[in-house]
């Protein structure tokens, strides 16, 4: 029931929001209006350009017009719209950060004197909250004054953005309009702009990778300044939550990630132990024994299995598989943890089955038909053909598939977040509860994310390890496939 109508975020979310949000909603609305303005002015520009080009085209005895009128319109529209769009995006992205630094420097020096950066940050978030209308307790008069300043500055900055963008668009519109002439190469110009845009879009992929690497490295380096690298990689004790409560740099051993790595490995190995036999045998059956009718039924079912969101598998693990394994363990007299590695690994294995079966299927099908026919013609049974001819020939592809599946298993998050444990125990017992890299990332980052505590930064260090390992597995898989595949072609 939304009795109040105001979104009520939980305590965890609010704590995070206080630290991080830069701009209040009002400023963002102005961004929306600016974007609308850009669209409208671009449309106006298009019709202006097209209209004047049509007049040339219609004028008798004039020069032959180079580009179609539409291109003249598009020429003005892209030069009006795109720079303004970039300006608004950049302005909106950096306005908050710039205003923050301005506000901090505007605080009276008597007030800021002797305050650490962390305390200043706290003051800043208090000012921001006050400015967006959320007051907690009685703020200091300096803070109140700063909040009032922030509100008025935000107002000024937002409207300045609109005014600057509108002025720029109008100037460009007038200037570009003067460029239009019958022999003006509007089409070539527009096409160059479009090509540039397309190059930019394809560079987004690289920017994403760079963004991932830079953000992971940046936070990880901050983490390794607090906790030495060798301690993180080789330490045997992982107790990140204690570090925050003690409110100081973690003591020795609290950030040793070995138990987390072994836990990840244990669960992934269980998952692969479930998925490889089932997936591979499924592929063998589909390639060698099944007729089209069976294949047309089984393949879609495997696709359904592949399309189920992982959060669903996680719920299945918690609700059905973990209690069942616990019961079974109890019957056999084995002490089983309620969130055993076996439950999480087993369900993760189910998730990976379609992955392995379809990649093995592809690899087996890529084996030249003549090899299979030759073997069968020599009198080998289908099973012998499969195990002695097809599987060895397809092995690189299958290995590649298994490596890809392993990288999936290591990076899988929701199943383990829901079904695996939170406490890092150094064990290889599948009935015990272990934790994984992804579980730790999620638990460390859900809730309060203050970016100067080792607890939060540790998540980025784990993320970096995860990124490197999965990337390495993928590259290795591609290399294996590439290196050994050509043998038969």
């Amino acid at each position: 029931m939304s009795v109040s109508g105001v979104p009520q975020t939980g305590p965890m979310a609010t704590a995070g929001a206080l630290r991080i949000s830069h701009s209040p909603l009002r400023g963002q609305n102005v961004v929306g209006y600016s974007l609308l303005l850009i669209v409208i002015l671009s449309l106006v520009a298009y019709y202006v350009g097209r209209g004047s080009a049509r007049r040339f085209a219609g004028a008798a005895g004039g020069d032959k017009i180079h580009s179609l009128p539409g291109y003249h319109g598009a020429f003005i529209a892209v030069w009006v719209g795109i720079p303004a769009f970039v300006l608004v995006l950049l302005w909106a992205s950096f306005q908050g950060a710039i205003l923050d630094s301005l506000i901090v420097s505007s605080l009276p020096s008597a007030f800021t004197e002797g305050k650490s950066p962390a305390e200043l940050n706290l003051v800043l978030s208090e000012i921001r909250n006050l400015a967006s209308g959320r007051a907690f307790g009685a703020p200091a008069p300096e803070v109140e004054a700063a909040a009032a300043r922030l509100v008025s500055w935000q107002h000024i900055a937002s409207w300045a953005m609109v005014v600057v963008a509108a002025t720029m668009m109008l100037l460009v519109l007038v200037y570009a309009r003067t460029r239009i002439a019958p022999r003006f190469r509007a089409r070539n110009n527009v096409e160059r702009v479009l090509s540039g845009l397309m190059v930019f879009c394809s560079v987004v992929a690289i920017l994403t990778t760079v963004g991932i690497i830079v953000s992971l490295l940046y936070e990880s380096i901050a983490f390794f300044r607090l906790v030495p690298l060798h301690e993180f990689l080789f330490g045997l004790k992982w107790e990140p939550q204690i570090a925050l409560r003690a409110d100081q740099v973690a003591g020795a051993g609290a950030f040793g990630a070995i138990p987390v790595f072994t836990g990840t490995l244990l669960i992934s190995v269980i998952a692969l132990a479930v998925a490889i036999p089932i997936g591979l045998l499924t592929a063998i059956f589909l390639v060698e024994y099944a007729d089209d009718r069976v294949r047309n039924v089984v393949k879609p079912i495997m696709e359904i299995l592949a399309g189920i969101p992982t959060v669903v598998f996680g719920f299945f693990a918690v609700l059905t598989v973990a209690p069942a394994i616990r019961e079974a363990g109890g019957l056999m007299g084995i002490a089983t943890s309620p969130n055993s590695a076996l439950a999480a690994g087993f369900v993760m294995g189910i998730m990976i089955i379609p992955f392995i079966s379809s990649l093995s299927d592809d690899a087996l099908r890529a084996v030249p038909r003549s090899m299979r026919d030759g073997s069968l013609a020599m009198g080998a049974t289908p099973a012998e053909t499969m195990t002695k001819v097809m599987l060895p020939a397809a092995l690189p592809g299958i290995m590649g598939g298994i490596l890809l599946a392993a990288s999936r298993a290591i990076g899988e998050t929701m199943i383990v977040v829901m079904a695996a444990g939170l406490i890092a125990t150094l064990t290889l017992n599948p009935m015990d509860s272990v934790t994984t890299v992804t579980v730790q990332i999620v638990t460390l980052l859900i809730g309060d994310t203050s970016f100067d505590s080792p607890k939060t930064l540790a998540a980025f260090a784990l993320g970096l390890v995860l990124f490197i390992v999965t990337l390495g597995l993928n590259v290795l898989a591609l290399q294996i496939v590439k290196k050994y595949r050509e043998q038969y072609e």
Partner: protein
Amino acid sequence: MSDTALAGPVDWTSQQAAGRRRSRHAANRRLQFYGIAAISTAIGLLGLLITTLVIGGYPAFLQTKITLDFPIKAEYVDAANPAGGNYRAVVRDALLGIAPEATTPPQQRLLGQLLTNNTQFFVRDAVVANPSVIGGTLTLTVPASDPIDQLNKGLIDRDLPENQRRVNDVQLGFYDRLVAENRVSAPFNWALFFNADSRFPELAGLAGAITGSFYALLVCFLISFPVGIAAAIYLEEFAPRNRWTYLIEVNINNLAAVPSIVFGLLGLAVFIQVFGIPRSAPLAGGMVLALMTLPTMIIVTRASLKAIPPSIREGALGVGASKHQVIMHHVLPLALPGILTGTIIGLAQALGETAPLLLVGMNAFITSPPGGILEASTALPTQIFIWADSPERGFTSRTSAAILVLLAFLVVMNGIAIFLRQRLERRW
């Protein structure tokens, strides 16, 4: 094979030869059997998964409701200010109407626990909507509380000893009286779709999550669709074959294999920390999902472009179109059905993605649907995660129901994609 060089002619009809043949054929049958067993296991596990979800989830599509007569006395509710009345007392009176013997406060508390905690607000809203009932009697159907809901659906065993049951004997008596008076009903649970999240299972619904997922997918689509198509056109039609292009292609393939949670870390560090997008906003979630969907979009679009025969391009070039015109006027329109199919499949994947949304904070407890892409919100998969973590029993079946809703969305989206592929795709 040299090691099995034969000394003389083989007697293929001998006992030994027949035995060898039998064992080889048995090995063949064994492998076939293993294959069948593997497939049956996989299908069986999928069946088990869906069966548990359906069995666990279908009760949540019905909601036990209780119809009561609420005497709206003028002493509690002022006609001039109906919103400010003492509705707690009104609800108490209504309950006393069916159980007059509950005079002590503990008994009244047990009685009150039959109804949802927010009953007084339901009554208030009904009175505010229709102030003429003040002084008269209002007959209203309100949701039952979670334990009564479970009891009515047969999920609580009445024969258990009282101390192991979530409904005690006194409440059981009250409940039986309500049933006898025909006041208990279990209609379809529309609240599951039209209510936002709530602490009380009987009131919790998916409206906020569905709206949040819609906004996030909208942002994801608005970014990944144009960027993906533009990148694919460039790489497929314009890019020179050089090291730079190769680098981009390797990058796209690697991005497709990066774990989703790493994208969440990127979103947290860049979109929220640097760009200052509010935490929990569908804008941040949608941007992260867009980056994840981008490789899929590019790969699918390139495949569709590749499938257009070169004769189309050559024909258009031959009549004097520029390269851009060939692509914009001829190739792209012909490739569009394939691109749309791929887009829908990519969006369906994005809809089920959970981990990156957790990191950008779309797992907050929010009791009203978001009004825009900047308001804090949850999404369908994160709502499932929140409910799966909630201790109340009622949330278990709600979780299954929410999963069924999510799967229904996925089935519909994939169905549309398959339909489009079959109807619109042209074979050359």
